[in-house]
């Protein structure tokens, strides 16, 4: 992590230990909700996507939500879309490399937060792999 700058470093705030020490470089495929077609807007954190509310964990909100498996992503998106169709019905697979950032350990629901390094873009590397009914 040393020497790598995070994309939203200046937004974390000095009082916050961010990303947490538990976040580590990751290599492999991760899954994320997206729209079709995929654009830059599918890979922006909460304060930029929804600037109306400054709520939530001050560090986590500057990371991107991913899931460790497609099944976990599908389960969460299905649950969310029953009431919140603000989430589009697509799931993208993204090949993440060690140079992209650091990721927290997935929780029981497969969810993890990835903090991107500066100059990283996932748009060209994301592919829609599933559309929910």
């Amino acid at each position, binding site marked *: 992590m040393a020497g790598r700058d995070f994309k939203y470093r200046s937004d974390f705030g000095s009082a916050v230990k961010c990303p947490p020490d538990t976040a580590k470089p990751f290599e492999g495929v991760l899954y994320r909700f997206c729209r079709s077609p995929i654009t830059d807007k599918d890979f922006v954190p909460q304060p930029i*996507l*929804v600037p*109306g*509310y400054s*709520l939530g964990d001050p560090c986590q*909100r500057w990371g991107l939500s991913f899931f460790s498996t497609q099944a976990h992503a599908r389960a969460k998106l299905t*649950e*969310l879309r029953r*009431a*919140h169709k603000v989430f589009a019905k697509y799931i993208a697979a993204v090949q993440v490399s060690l140079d992209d950032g650091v990721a927290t350990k997935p929780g029981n629901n497969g969810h993890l937060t990835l903090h991107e390094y500066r100059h990283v873009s996932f748009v060209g590397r994301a592919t829609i792999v599933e559309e929910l009914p």
Partner: protein
Amino acid sequence: MKLLLSTTSQDLVVKRVLEFFDFPLLVELHDGGDVFVEKICELTADGEVYLQQKTSPRKIAQFMAQQITFNELLFDSSGLVVCVQRTNGKLVEKWATRRVDLPADYVPDDDARHTPSLEPDSDRVIESFLISDTWNMGWLAKTERDYGTCVDLVIATSTGEPLPDNVINRSLESGGSHALANAAMSIAARKKVERARTEGIHANSPGVLNIDSPRAYAELVRNSMQNIVDNYDKFDSLYAQIHAWSKGKPESRSPFPSNANEQLSEFSQLLHIPMKALFRSQGKDAQIRAAKLLAAHARRLKRLVQGTHGLKLVGFEDTGLMGAPADDIEY
């Protein structure tokens, strides 16, 4: 139909996030004494569009307990709803429209209810007590006291460390109930846990009493209440046995049983109170002191389950719990 509304008035103040994933999905807003909910519906190039509806704290409590659907929370019988557009956090447009004119994606599925896993991570939780149509301030105070004391005892005993001598001894002198209340309060305060505190009383009929509580301990209290409902015969039998040999003055007690320890162990497990926290010594007197404290805690829990004071914790409205009201049980 789209009826533009004024945007010159001050925007509402966010009180609580009810559902969150990546960003707030459903929030509770206040404007003076009025309560609203707001649900994000669309992300556009120009900002976000929200549905906004005036509601009541009681309705929010029922929604959070999954007793009413999303649509019952968001829409009233008028069929009208307010939409709000914000750009960079600023209110830019507000309009009234009919539910039938909303884009389909704005409206939740008919059977969609609150998803507890979407509640934001927090070490606090609002526990809501529904107030009956006929109520008085005394009932509110008694419910607050019973609930607060139950949470306090769970905090005070959570580490399993024995309660102080003076506390346990007082249960012999002044009865378990008073000792419990005083002890739990002072010990919980020392443990640097923010104790349960009343967040708001919304007494408009029918109303709600909201108590802001430490989540981990509130869950234990809830679980022990559920244990009472699910195992009522066992609860009732253990209470009767333990109370019989520990109540009041020595001359009024039934003979001390040989299996007192087993009874206490079973009862403390049912009530989620670590038994070792109730003992500083061994022997008959120590067992009687522990029994008094546990019995006093059990009576409070039972009153909360039964809604003896006219207020029922959401989720425990219709327990059908049989047996004498806790108030009629001898102290």
